[in-house]
């Protein structure tokens, strides 16, 4: 099966390592990705609350472009960033269920010379890896099993909430399953879905950094060697301020935080350079040793 790929803004900026590692891993596994031509903002965060029509219209443009490019029948779009994943899904559901809104948006699309027919399926890379590719096949592709590595999977808010399609909304396990398939120990912990601080980390650091701290502290308390995420913002928040947080709370909470695809790439034997490991601030020593 061929998938269309929607990178979103973060994967071209702070989350470059996510894109690099995702593309490398999918290439090695033989999963075909074709980037959607001329894609635009997913409409994440504030836009949706300020002007719903415009937010949904710009998001729908991506879906319409994908249908145009993907040919007839169902068109599967992989959206790796959790915020994009949720934004695209939410838009599709709105269009599917709100007749009045759909009509308005379709008219807007017409104005842009586009058609949206509702043939898109929004997929998360974890969903594709587990349900399309299969963990058995993944296991066979592992070249350097991550034995003795305690992995803390951190899902963040938007992968399963408010729309849970491929994993449990209150107790997701997909990233843990991938980690176990790579040979690592998946550490069960109670903060898989707790807030990473979101935009607060930069805007209201007192609040945001406390939220970061609680997560990092618990990851250490559970004796995690490494944290993995599927969201550029989660990764950024949890990794970038570790020095400040350690000082502020007088508690050493340093722990490598990387994208799950980077961890996969290491187990698959892909060179670190191709996985963007050099971009990490907190170097993942336990893996590379």
């Amino acid at each position, binding site marked *: 099966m061929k998938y269309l790929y929607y990178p979103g803004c973060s994967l071209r900026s702070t989350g470059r390592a996510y894109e690099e590692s995702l593309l490398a891993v999918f290439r090695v596994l033989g999963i075909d990705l074709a980037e959607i031509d001329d894609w635009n903002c997913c409409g994440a965060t504030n836009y949706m609350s300020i002007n719903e029509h415009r937010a949904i219209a710009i998001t729908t443009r991506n879906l319409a472009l994908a249908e145009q490019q993907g040919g007839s029948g169902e068109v599967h779009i992989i959206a790796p960033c959790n915020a994009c994943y949720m934004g695209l899904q939410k838009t599709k559901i709105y269009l599917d269920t709100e007749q009045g809104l759909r009509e308005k948006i379709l008219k807007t699309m017409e104005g842009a010379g586009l058609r949206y027919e509702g043939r898109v399926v929004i997929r998360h890379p974890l969903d594709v890896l587990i349900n399309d590719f299969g963990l058995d096949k993944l296991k066979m592709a592992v070249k350097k099993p991550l034995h003795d590595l305690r992995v803390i999977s951190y899902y963040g808010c938007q992968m399963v909430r408010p729309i849970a399609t491929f994993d449990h909304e*209150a107790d997701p396990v997909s990233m843990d399953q991938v980690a176990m398939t790579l040979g690592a120990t998946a550490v069960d912990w109670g903060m898989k879905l707790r807030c990473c601080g979101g935009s607060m980390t930069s805007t209201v650091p007192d609040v945001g950094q406390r939220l970061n701290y609680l997560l990092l502290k618990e990851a250490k308390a559970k004796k995690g060697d490494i944290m993995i995420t599927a969201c550029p913002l989660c990764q950024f928040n949890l990794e970038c301020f570790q020095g400040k947080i350690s000082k502020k709370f007088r508690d050493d909470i340093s722990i490598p935080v990387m994208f799950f695809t980077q961890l996969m790439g290491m187990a698959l034997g892909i060179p670190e350079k191709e996985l963007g490991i050099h971009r990490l601030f907190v170097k993942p020593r336990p893996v590379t040793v």
Partner: protein
Amino acid sequence: MSHHKEEIRIGVYICHCGHNIAGTVDVTGIAEYASRLPNVVISKDYKYMCSDPGQVLIGQDIAEHKLNRIVVSSCSPLLHEKTFRDALVKGGLNPFFLQMVNIRENVSWVHTDTDDANLKARDLVRAAVHRVAYQKELTKKKVPVNPDVLIVGGGIAGISAALTMADAGKKVFLVEKEPTIGGHMALFDKTFPTLDCAACILTPKMSSVKKHPNITLWSYSEVSEVSGFVGNYKVKVTRKPRYVIEELCVGCYACVDECIFKEGKFPDEFNLGMSKRKPVYLPFPQATPLVAVIDDKTCIHFKTGKCQQSCAKACDRNAIDFNQQPEVKEIEVGTVILTTGFKAFDARRLPYYGYGKFPNVFTSLEVERMVNASGPTEGHVVLKDGSKPKSVGIVHCVGSRDEKTNKWCSRVCCMYSLKLAHLIKEHTGAEVYNFYIDMRTPGKGYEEFYDKLLREDVHFIRGRVAEVSDWATTSDEEGKLIMRVEDTMVGMVRRIPVDMVVLSVGLEPRDDAQDIRKLFNISCSTEGFFLEKHPKLAPVDTFTDGVFIAGAAQGPRDIPDSVAQAGAAAAQALALIDSGHVELEPNTAYITDTLCSGCKSCLNICPYKAIAFDDEKRKSVINEALCKGCGTCVASCPSGAIRQNLFEDEEIFSEIRGLFVESI
């Protein structure tokens, strides 16, 4: 309609039902419209057709205008068909010359647009006028009622119903799936709000059931087949082999003591897996019948065939029989009472409460067993490490009042949570927190019990608990279970560290409720509990005559209400039995011999095995007593030889013509 022998004279009555119909439908206009329809002699509208004057009106018009067909346009026939059929009889007409049109549920209650509602009402009345002209004179058959009763489910509801029926002199078959009767109530230590000992009030009833000469108790048994109809049900009950001869066993425990397993090894169902039992066991010391059971899934004899059978040797009454086979009992009963109870919500479905993950998160039923002196901890409320909890949080509404799991209120949880709070405090002296959404304590002495708890220094925090976790933010929280909750009284999110969490799980339909529903041909409401015939006025009847329901199988219910319902169900069954006979709706199929080609295609199609083949005449024959009037054979007969009373071709075709073609 010239081919009718008699002149058809129809009376049409449009009911206002107060504002229920008249508020949306132009009743006078419809009556006026109907008066112009073919064969209609008189057409009237009236405020309440079901009232006495309304019924008298029909009778008077029959006499005065020589009416011979009646159309009543009002509510659902389920509600008042009998009323109006009786009115026809009083007026001297055959009751089957009535046709009802439901312009309430099907029109006024579901339409807001008056014009559309009026059009639909006119169409339906016109169709009925066309149909009724073809309706035939029919007679109801009277069938005697078998006075014996089957009760399925031996919890407190089934036990109560059984004793009432048996005391009234009726023969009762009480069928229970588990090895003992007693149901959920047998698990409890104390009952709310009086805190009287559950066993003390239940076990005498259980032994009365066993001793009663009119009650046949079949435990470890399930109903496997039901046929027949009201007053005359034929039922097959499968008795599972317990490998112990019930008549010989005296419950002395010798077999249990001598089992080659020196200690219990398998999860004890009665203690919800919190203790272990041997393959041969008695559920609890007051089990009824007090007869051992051998679980063939864990017994070495059944698994390997290589057991020294020390249990059999230990039994000086030779009661153990490894060769026992399932036994099918066939019985005939006139009435059935279903008291199959409920299932407790599986707390694993809400992973954020940590049940199954954190050892000190318990369900309310597990704590019920813990506070019970004969339970797994001999009455001590303890943590998994054996120590006493210093603080306990009780979460209300787990699997109740929740869009994501069950929307309904389980009715008993507030009260049993209060009871557990009291008992836990009494047993441990711990700080006890109740996390509730609303306190629901309607019931005699219930609010007073809540008040008593408020004075016992139990904490009440209003808010649905968001999660139970083990991640600590402060040193106070280290090693504790932390309950995160929005305290809606204070307006802030709180984190409360405790040693033990109790999840007050709600009540759900049993997993096999659908199987039972199909067996007895009754209905379930959307959430899966058995559906009563009318929520207010026929709460223990079902839409299948002669089958009654009581207890938590019908909906979440506490002990007093279950017992009350059981009494009501018994009274309904007794009323039916004592009337001596039932009248059967004459909706059966019949065969016109001259048309039957003897192709036999109807034989296998009949779901009730009501059709036989007469080899001599080479024709099919329908047994009217078995025919349920489903119409399957009627539709399938290639030569049109099978017809059905109340659903004759002429009636249906004329109705359709009336609906679509002959608009005026």
